[in-house]
């Protein structure tokens, strides 16, 4: 039963999660091994699927499978169905592959944590959810995975939630993601209301006779969802705090896989964006803004993980931008996504290993000169560094330059702006990555006395090494003979090439120069003069703003949080005073009138007689009225 094996992809890690969570402490001994094994086996299933797929012709490659009828009410019919095509297979391999490596890494990294078993349970849960996300054959199934990874990310960010700050960080991540998810549900609603279906194939088919307005609406809402999950502007604020999670988590979820779900969503929905130029334009803008936004933040961070997080944000900005460029861009976006998966994960693991050696110090100003103490980490990290810079022949060179090139060639003034932005971004990236390298590995040691930096055990450096290899080779492999582009092309309808504004050579040249400039500045600034181990206070306003993540939190707090809290307080008060108050008033009124009416009962028989008399007179009067 080959088709069934799609289920195994998800079922294996899911089972792992379930077993570990239900078995509880009993499974502490072997839990991590089981989890790793299951993740790995899922990876091999993926490979097997790939082999099968390679064996089929282009049209035959996508396979889908209905598991059972999930929801069916009236015309709203959703099957629990999976779909594996050229796009999702890439993700499957990335997720399970990098995932497995990180499982391995974590065995050692988390070895001292009493709750390691729970950690692995969550990792497996994440893998399962992420696979569901990329395998679901309809937007609603995708939604399940979409929120599933959100949950896993919440659990993992808050893994050490006994620290209030971390608990808050996890909550922040979940809530901001929910804002994005809201966009996704809107998209689904519009899709159902206008097209009567929410399955990828169904929607794709329905696009041609659907009003542009609706398509634009769907597109924008999908973009909102993407910004939430992929930490794009304006929903980017959670990513930095998400670094509260254990470093392997940052590597897997917040660098390699989950945060790229937005890119997947947009490329998956290419048929919608191609038909909704406005939405597509917005995608590009969001991408451009974010890539600058992230890059700028990156320049000011002293926390190595936050610096990397900022860089992730910026790199995903590249991908979104690429995806926003339409059919020509999708493939490159994916390519960058994959290469980024390698080098960024690698660098995060490197950071982890550094922290491991520096008893969890994250402040780069307290590092320095680690090259000697952790050669392997330095090597792997360095390769990742070169890759992200886009130095040929490393991975980034292929993927990133493609995006820059496509940006330039996207035509007209738009092309020029986008191109320059991407170029500038590249240069800034070069600057802050160099800064990270210098502060961490070179120069004088600035760590305090109790730190005994040492290389990490093989369980940790092996994955780093593998990823490093990936970050060297993946670019070449994927772009060799346009391998990936051709692989994916059947999914995207090609509108033919734009006129070339700049030739690839020129672009590469430009890019490299810009990078060189960035590197140079970094060298002048940090390598020459001594770096202090505390962040200097007398810095420019820009630096300060950058250190505060360009005031993103300040903004959210003052615009959403505070007013929200005030509103809540007011409502709580009015609910008691006004609404319930009204009810109480009615009651009091009744009692009051009763008390006052008692007065009639004076106790004097004569007044009673008078009452009767009055009554009699009243009756007579009434009669008189009647008869007149």
């Amino acid at each position, binding site marked *: 039963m080959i088709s069934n094996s799609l289920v195994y992809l998800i079922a294996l890690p899911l089972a792992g999660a379930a077993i570990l969570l239900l078995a509880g402490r009993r499974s502490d001994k072997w839990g991590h091994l089981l989890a790793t094994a299951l993740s790995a086996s899922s990876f091999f299933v993926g490979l097997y699927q790939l082999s099968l797929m390679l064996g089929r012709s282009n049209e035959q490659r996508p396979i889908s499978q209905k598991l059972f009828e999930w929801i069916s009410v009236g015309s709203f019919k959703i099957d629990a169905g999976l779909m594996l095509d050229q796009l999702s297979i890439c993700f499957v391999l990335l997720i399970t592959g990098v995932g497995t490596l990180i499982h391995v890494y974590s065995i050692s990294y988390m070895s001292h944590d009493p709750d390691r078993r729970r950690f692995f349970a969550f990792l497996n849960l994440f893998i399962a959810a992420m696979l569901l996300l990329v395998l679901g054959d309809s937007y609603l199934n995708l939604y399940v995975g979409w929120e599933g990874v959100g949950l896993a990310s919440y659990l993992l960010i808050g893994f050490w939630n006994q620290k209030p700050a971390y608990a808050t960080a996890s909550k922040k991540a979940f809530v901001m993601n929910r804002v994005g998810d809201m966009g996704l549900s809107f998209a689904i609603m519009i899709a159902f209301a206008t097209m009567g279906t929410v399955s990828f194939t169904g929607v794709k088919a329905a696009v041609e006779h659907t009003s542009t307005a609706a398509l634009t609406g769907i597109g924008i809402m999908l973009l909102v969802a993407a910004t939430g999950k992929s930490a794009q502007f304006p929903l980017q604020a959670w990513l930095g705090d998400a670094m509260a999670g254990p470093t392997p988590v940052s590597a897997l979820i917040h660098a390699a896989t989950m945060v790229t779900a937005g890119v997947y969503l947009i490329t998956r929905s290419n048929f919608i964006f191609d038909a909704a130029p406005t939405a597509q334009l917005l995608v590009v803008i969001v991408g451009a803004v974010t890539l600058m936004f992230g890059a700028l933040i990156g320049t000011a961070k002293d926390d190595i993980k936050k610096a990397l997080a900022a860089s992730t944000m910026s790199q995903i900005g590249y991908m979104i931008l690429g995806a926003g460029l339409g059919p020509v861009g999708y493939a490159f976006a994916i390519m960058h996504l994959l290469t980024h998966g390698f080098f960024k994960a690698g660098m995060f693991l490197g950071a982890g290993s550094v922290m491991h050696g520096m008893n969890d110090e994250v402040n780069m100003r307290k590092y320095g000169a680690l090259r000697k103490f952790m050669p392997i980490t330095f090597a792997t990290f360095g390769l990742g560094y070169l890759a992200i810079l886009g130095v040929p022949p490393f991975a980034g060179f292929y993927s990133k330059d493609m995006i820059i090139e496509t940006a330039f060639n996207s035509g007209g003034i738009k092309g020029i702006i986008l191109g320059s932005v991407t170029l500038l971004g590249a240069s800034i990236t070069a600057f802050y990555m160099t800064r990270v390298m210098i502060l961490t590995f070179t120069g004088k040691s600035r760590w305090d006395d109790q730190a005994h930096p040492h290389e990490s055990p093989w369980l940790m450096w092996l994955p780093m090494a593998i990823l490093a290899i990936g970050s060297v080779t993946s670019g070449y492999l994927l772009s060799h003979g346009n391998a990936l582009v051709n692989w994916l092309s059947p999914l995207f309808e090609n509108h033919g090439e734009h006129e070339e504004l700049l030739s690839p050579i020129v672009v590469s040249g430009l890019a490299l120069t810009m990078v060189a400039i960035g590197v140079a500045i970094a060298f002048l600034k940090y390598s020459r003069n001594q770096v202090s181990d505390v962040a200097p206070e007398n810095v420019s306003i820009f630096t300060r703003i950058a250190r505060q993540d360009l005031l993103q939190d300040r903004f959210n707090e003052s615009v959403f949080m505070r007013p929200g809290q005030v509103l809540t307080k007011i409502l709580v008060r009015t609910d008691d005073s006004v609404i319930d108050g009204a009810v109480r008033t009615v009651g009091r009124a009744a009692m009051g009138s009763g008390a006052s009416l008692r*007065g009639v009962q004076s*106790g004097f028989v004569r007044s009673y007689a008078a009452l009767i*008399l009055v009554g009699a007179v009243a009756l007579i009067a009434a009669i008189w009225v009647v008869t007149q």
Partner: protein
Amino acid sequence: MDAANYLYLSALLFTIGAVGVVVRRNAIVVFMCIELMLNAANLSFVTFSRINGDLNGQVIAFFTMVVAACEVVVGLAIIVTIYRSRRSASVDDASLLKR
């Protein structure tokens, strides 16, 4: 002479009685006012029986007198007990029960 005048008279008597009940304090007097009202009613009965040329009205008058007598018996009994225990026959003093 027009029989209606008797009706006016009885109405007048009735009103006097009713007002008397309301304004007088002494239980006995109050009671006498009520008797006045009853007799006013009797007067009407008799008048009507005269007007309608039908004897039943007059029969009722007799019944009423008997009933009034019974009322007197019961009434005086009650008033006297009250008077004995309170040493006052003022209806205003008897106002324990109120509200």
